[in-house]
């Protein structure tokens, strides 16, 4: 069904990788995230991997909740204050409460949301459970983030690329190693959308973690997971926003980005920002 290298995004298979195999024997980031958020759509390997990470870095549970809360505030901002009605959310994850289309369509029912993921379990859940409001639309693309051709050509059939699109890349770019040039991938996506479009990113910060903690996390992940992680510095994450103007408060730890009173408090290791394309 697919090649083995598709299961190892770190191996430099840029571009045309097939879907991930259906494999629950190795941990998958989406299911680890589900476990961290208290979900039940995870398997033994995912829990073992997550516990290994928590052992090194107990704050990872907060990090997952903080990232999820960031998603809610970002989509809320984009739909309400920026008036965006089209969303390209890459790295869907296992559906849980407050998914992108639910947040957007609660504010603007006509919002159109295209989800992209390459994990067969995520896609199965997303297709079955992420159902649109009558007025809007929700669609799914089965593609690897590296495969921007597929993503853009399919997204064009569902979204109007002459109008602003919000490109949402939350907790996904760390799974793209430098050898696959994540900055070029983001630039390709942003080149395709018109001026006035938005880019939202959250990204594990190598300068938000102590060196030994970071090494401990990466070691735990290397031994257990389908994905490999590359955490990046503030400056490296800021480069993704080239050609955009960052909205206030700029690139900050995700929990500090326009916090709501009810959000969990703590310190996460993730940088987050929203930029508006010039």
């Amino acid at each position, binding site marked *: 069904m697919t090649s083995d290298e598709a299961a190892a995004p770190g191996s430099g298979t840029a571009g045309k990788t097939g879907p991930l195999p*259906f494999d*629950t024997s190795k941990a998958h980031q989406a299911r680890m995230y589900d476990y961290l958020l*208290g979900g*039940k*759509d995870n*398997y*033994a390997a995912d829990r073992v991997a997550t516990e290994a990470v928590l052992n090194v870095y107990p704050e990872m549970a907060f990090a997952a909740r903080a990232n999820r809360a960031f998603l809610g505030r970002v989509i809320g901002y984009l739909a309400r204050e920026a008036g965006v009605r089209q969303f390209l959310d890459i790295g869907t994850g296992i559906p849980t409460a407050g998914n992108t289309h639910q947040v957007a369509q609660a504010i603007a029912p006509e919002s159109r949301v295209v989800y992209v993921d390459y994990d*067969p*379990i995520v*896609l*199965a*859940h997303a*297709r*079955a*459970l992420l*159902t649109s409001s009558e007025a809007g639309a929700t669609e*799914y693309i089965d593609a690897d983030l590296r495969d921007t051709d597929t993503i853009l050509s399919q997204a064009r059939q569902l979204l109007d690329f002459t109008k602003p699109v919000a490109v949402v890349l939350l907790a996904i770019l760390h799974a793209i190693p430098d050898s696959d040039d994540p900055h070029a991938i983001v630039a390709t996506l942003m080149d395709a959308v018109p001026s006035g479009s938005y880019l939202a990113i959250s990204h594990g910060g190598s300068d938000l973690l102590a060196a030994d903690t970071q090494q401990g996390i990466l070691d735990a992940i290397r031994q257990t997971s389908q994905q490999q992680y590359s955490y990046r510095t503030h400056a490296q994450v800021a480069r993704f926003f080239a050609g955009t103007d960052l909205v206030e408060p700029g690139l900050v730890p995700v929990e500090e980005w326009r916090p709501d009173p009810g959000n969990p408090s703590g310190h996460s290791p993730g940088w987050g920002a929203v930029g508006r394309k010039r």
Partner: protein
Amino acid sequence: MNTEVPGGEQPDPGMDDPSAGGVILRMLLGAQLRRLREAADVTPEQAGYEIRASRSKISRMETGQVGLKARDITDLLALYGVTDEQVQSRFLQLAHQSSRPDWWAKYGDILPGWFENYLGLESVSSTIRTFEIQFVHGLFQTEDYARAVTRLGHQTAPAAEIERRVGLRVKRQDLLARADPPRMWSVMDEAVLRRPVGGPAVMRAQLRRLIEAAGLPQVTVQVVPFARGGHAGASGSFTVLRFEEQDLPDVVYIEQLTDAVYLEQRSDVEHYLEVMDQLSGEALTPAATTLFIEQVAKET
């Protein structure tokens, strides 16, 4: 029922009747009580003292051998430091569910205990995932289709009994019309659509009903077409029930001819969950499924 005398232990309702509805639910709630007690570092003796009962009573509560009384639960949850009112009231509601005679009690004469257990669990689940290889799921059946299926299983039963069985099945569907219905995610083999149970007219009406059901916001229907070749669900139909409580494990339910199997050990459940996930991925998307059923209805 709060008539017990402090210090004394009364016979617990349902104790003599292990097949009464809610046994599985009681087991799950008991296991949750044990986890909470251990997390709070409370011994069974201390817990027993709190509710004026023995250590062994606590042990029997935690293994689902006895019914759970509201006052005991309230006291124990307080002792274990569970103060969230929503958690408390949901726990009480589930405990109540595990012991009360339900709407199906009046069908006791035709309802085997193992199926009564299932109805109890189904009614408190937050998500019901099913895979069907033979028949349309009971929650989606039309009356005529249900009658045809029932006749197959009870060929010598008098007409009045058949009608009671059909009535039970139709009544059960109130679940999906409830104010806060569970999410129903049903995957089925194409054979389910092609087998004209009750004849072509009954089947066409059934297929229309299935399309209607698929349009409900809480319902997802997916078909695994023959054209996809073999599929992961070779072992047959099964159901995975999920509960809102983070602590309660999923339960797998597998119906057999004269009995049913319940699995709640994580390693067992996980195997079925994996097959269910795989089937959901192999199946047509919900939108494509609706078109597919419409096509089958035309050909029926």
